[in-house]
């Protein structure tokens, strides 16, 4: 399972990624989590199973959904409160739920 997080510069999201990695449990299987800045989204997106956007770039959602739609990759904006408190476990759950839909 490969999760992609996107934010403006990839800085704050990399903080979230660290916390998410710590929340990974063995029963989830192999989980890869990466953070990229918004301008690299198009290059890398097709290699991932699920995409989460930082809430600060949610104006990109429609645009990005056109691309993820082509590949059938689910995409959601991260819950702002979880993002703010850097709750890696909650955000990881959000990603896992998305793939199960």
């Amino acid at each position, binding site marked *: 399972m490969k999760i992609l997080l996107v934010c403006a510069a990839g800085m704050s999201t990399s903080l979230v990624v660290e916390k998410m990695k710590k929340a990974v449990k063995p029963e989830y299987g192999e989980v890869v989590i990466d953070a990229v800045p918004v301008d690299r989204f198009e290059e890398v997106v097709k290699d991932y199973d699920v995409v989460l956007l930082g809430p600060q770039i949610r*104006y990109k959602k429609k645009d990005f959904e056109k691309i993820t739609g082509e590949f059938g990759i689910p995409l959601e904006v991260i819950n*702002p409160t979880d*993002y*703010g*408190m*850097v709750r890696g476990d909650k955000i990881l759950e959000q990603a896992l739920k998305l793939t199960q839909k």
Partner: protein
Amino acid sequence: MNFSERLNSVLENYLLPVAGLIANQRHLKSMRDGLIYTIPFTIMGGLVLIVANPPIAKDVLPSNFFLKFMVAWRDWAAANAYAIQLPFKMTMGIMALFVVIGVAYSLARSYKMDTLSASTIAVATFLIVAAPIKDGNIPAGYIDAKGIFTAVIIGLGSVEITRFLKSRNITIKMPEGVPPAVTSSFDALIPLGVNVLFFYFVSLVVQKLSGMIVPQAIMTILAPAIKVVDSAPAIFLAATLAQLFWFVGIHGASIVKTGLLQPFLDQNILANAEAVLSGNSLPYVFTNPFWAYFMVLGGSGATLGFTLMCVRSKSKQLNALGKVALLPALFNINEPIIFGTPMVLNPIMFIPFVFVQGINGVIAFYLTKLNFVNAAFINVPWTTPAPIGAFLATMDWRAIILVFALLILDMVLYYPFFKIYEKQLIEQEGEEEGIQEEVV
């Protein structure tokens, strides 16, 4: 509808589409991406400037060990000025050349056109317009800061012309039987020819009419705009707009600053760097480091002071947040504060969150203008902690004092709102605990 819901619907209905428009508009995006490519060059040039300009006055004498070192450095830098400055002159000193490559590349990539030929065509076109060769030398006078706007225009314009020719299928027609590889090797010929001739013609007309070459003319036209951007009202307005975006939870700086003002800020800092090398006074105040270290102190909204107060807060939520947010805040990253407090759509925090950053900007602007602190002339990565970044960008120790003074001011400005919000949270937390105890 309560206050925050109403604000939410108003701002989201108006600001979100605007944000999307600026963020997704192809030419603005290509300009932005093109300028981002040039950041390593400005940092490289900045490092050279640090070596070339030790932070010590010309008249200081070597009275102790530290000063001996500084004076030796100063004298060495003066004696070897040409050799030391050359890497600067070949990076930041010809910045517009990298800008034209970056912008043409980005726009061509967005159209899925051949990026290499787009960049090379743009360079040739740009040089014809901005640096006509004379006596075997390419003059560098307008491929520095003064050429940045021209570089953006030519980068975008030349790719658009090429795309127009392609869309009208204007290419060299080869007779049947000519191998396709041969035909495609001629593909770049017509766009190159048309671009060069078109811009050469424009250049000749401009020279004939105005007596100026194109970048000179463009800078003359843009001079009022450049002047307006480098002013206290513009700084305050930019900060407030960016924070209004942030208040509804969208990345305001990437829209207002990086999205629209970037070429101005780049132009300003390059012109400052060149002024330092030629020993002139620094012409501009508003630059990237100015924004990063004086205005968005601790992240958008100037929240470092607020973060420090959170660390010591009696509210469990703010206290937990402060601990998560403090370290990133030292590197000017504050999404935890923005979404964790939350600042977003929080009516109590609206006033400080939207206006403090602009207040910082106005104060720092006038202090710079009055020479209490040097203007920035070195581009430093924005994630450098503010006191260090401000010092490196200005090579002036007084910038460190300014950072701390602004930090204290921000704490004072945030304090009343922080207190109201904290009290509210503590009450809520008390209620929740009460409920839990009853359940137990």
